[in-house]
């Protein structure tokens, strides 16, 4: 692929005057970060994406774009070959020397927060809105998101007045095998608490568990996030690979729920409120579903 003269002129222009792009929103985007790519899409910027990283799996159409590899292991020349004007990613993006090379080539590199909390999301959305030239839409999206989470919180609070918070464990596995349990300080823990569950795991980070301690914790509810399988296939694999799981109260009462593992990567994504509603209706069964 030969670089067109206009692209060269553009790169040169950016080199000479790094502030030049401020007036005109960038038209060629590369996004490294699952949640971020979803937000770019939600803000109507999908047509501007010319490449995404391997964590950008939603919406489905993004998989057709050239893959720039894993967000922590980016390649400077690979990204430059897509002739982007801006590279967006979370602070997980790297390695730093590659980012420096990309910056030196005149590509705007914009860092976003991967923290799973509302202030970070607000900052991210405003930043994206400014880059895409649609700040109104970004504000609207955030307001809607905030409202959904507030509603969710109220619903959980109401449910809690009549029911005890269930003891929950989140298992993350690959086709059921050797699942890791989400402990404190993880996005998984945040999701469980937000959905009104009480995370029984007390360690920090994602750790493999001993079968005995899992049985000892006797969780009321199990949530599983499987990277390879979905739905009933993932559930069956989980029970098959870990027979002890079948003997927990959660399995006996049929309270084993699924969570999309891509929700746990790269900060708050647009699909999260919907998943929370789904989870908390499983955590507090007799209650009416919250209005979306």
């Amino acid at each position, binding site marked *: 692929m030969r670089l067109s003269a206009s692209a060269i002129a553009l*790169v040169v222009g950016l080199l000479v005057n790094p502030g030049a792009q401020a007036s005109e929103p960038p038209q060629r985007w590369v996004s490294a970060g699952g949640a971020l790519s979803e937000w770019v899409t939600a803000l109507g910027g999908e047509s501007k994406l010319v*490449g995404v990283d391997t964590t950008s799996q939603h919406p489905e159409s993004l998989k057709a774009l050239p893959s720039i590899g894993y967000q922590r292991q*980016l390649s400077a*020349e*690979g990204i*430059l*070959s897509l002739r982007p004007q801006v590279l967006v990613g979370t602070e*997980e993006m790297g*390695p730093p*020397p590659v980012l420096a090379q990309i910056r030196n080539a005149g590509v705007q590199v914009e860092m976003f927060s991967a923290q799973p909390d509302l202030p970070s999301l607000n900052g991210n959305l405003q930043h994206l809105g400014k880059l895409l030239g649609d700040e109104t839409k970004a504000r609207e999206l955030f307001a809607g998101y905030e409202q959904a989470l507030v509603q969710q919180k109220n619903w959980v609070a109401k449910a809690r007045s009549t029911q005890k918070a269930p003891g929950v464990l989140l298992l993350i596995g690959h086709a059921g095998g050797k699942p890791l349990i989400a402990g404190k300080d993880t996005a998984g823990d945040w999701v469980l608490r937000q959905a009104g569950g009480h995370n029984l795991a007390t360690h920090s980070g994602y750790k493999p568990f001993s079968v005995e301690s899992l049985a000892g914790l006797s969780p009321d509810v199990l949530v599983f996030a499987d990277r390879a399988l979905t739905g009933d296939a993932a559930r069956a694999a989980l029970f098959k690979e870990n027979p002890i799981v079948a003997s927990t109260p959660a399995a006996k009462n049929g309270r084993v729920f699924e969570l999309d593992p891509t929700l746990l990567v790269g900060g708050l994504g647009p699909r999260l409120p919907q998943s929370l509603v789904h989870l908390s209706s499983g955590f507090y069964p007799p209650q009416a579903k919250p209005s979306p």
Partner: protein
Amino acid sequence: MTSLVKPKTLFVGLSLLCVLATWLSLALGPVSLPLLDTLKAALRLVGVPIEAQGLEQAELILGQIRLPRTLLGLAVGGVLALSGVAMQGLFRNPLADPGLVGVSSGAALGAAIAIVGGSLLGGLPDALGPYLLSLCAFLGGLGVTALVYRLGRHNGQTNVATMLLAGIALTALAGSAVGLFTYLADDATLRTLAFWNLGSLNGASYSRLWPLLLVSAGVALWLPRRAKALNALLLGESEANHLGIDVERLKRELVFCTALGVGAAVAAAGMIGFVGLVVPHLVRLLAGPDHRVLLPASVLAGASLLLFADLVARLALAPAELPIGIVTAFIGAPFFLYLLLRGRA
């Protein structure tokens, strides 16, 4: 073992191969540059005054991305292959690999400490941050190798067999320590650690390049001077001693050069397997076991092999890229098996 190729032919061939690999490494990449632009930009980089008009893109890609990367590949490949020869000479065993004296596992431990410990400590001085990983890997490799060497010494003599066993024990020990850090690591640091263990020439920059270039130039100039001593050592330690070689000094030098060279290579590019094992074999197959040929030829062959592997790494999945450790082991492992099955290993 007779040689298939005359040394002179071999050197000419390998030099041409190395030049070809260097040129391809500069000329090919995910960004397609017109050949003429690449040539002009390359000439400008070496100081030929050519009109810069329209060359900005080519000069940037060549000067800031491909040239440091190519130099890194040359240095890492050369020094790894050279260390392989040194180790195979020291242990008088063609299956020896720089990992045997603990330098790789020590570097891995240092890296694990830096990656996991660095994120636990958090508040490091900014100036140190980017170099912490390389520094720890280098010191880890040097430290464990020094310990292996020390354990192999008894009454002023270095027992190579003891050193070998001590190397195996310390490699296992370092391995489980890395395992412990892996367990302690969070998701993010775990991925960093995993990728570091596969090695990459990605993101090479001049500031990280100079220490490695100095070290590998030093090692590449020093070791070939000891070729005759290494040849004598092939006969056996006491035989070499009777031939007037200071065997203890030779062993010390070999271990030191390996620790320094592999330590610096690993610090700059992560773990890259099989170059140290396979390249000396290849050269030995072609030209026989004479270290006067083996040492310099291995430098050229190692550098060329790594550059070709890097080309695969950066082009196969463009615009993403493969860790180079995957590519070298992919070539290296089947070759190693072939040698084993041929019954001459």
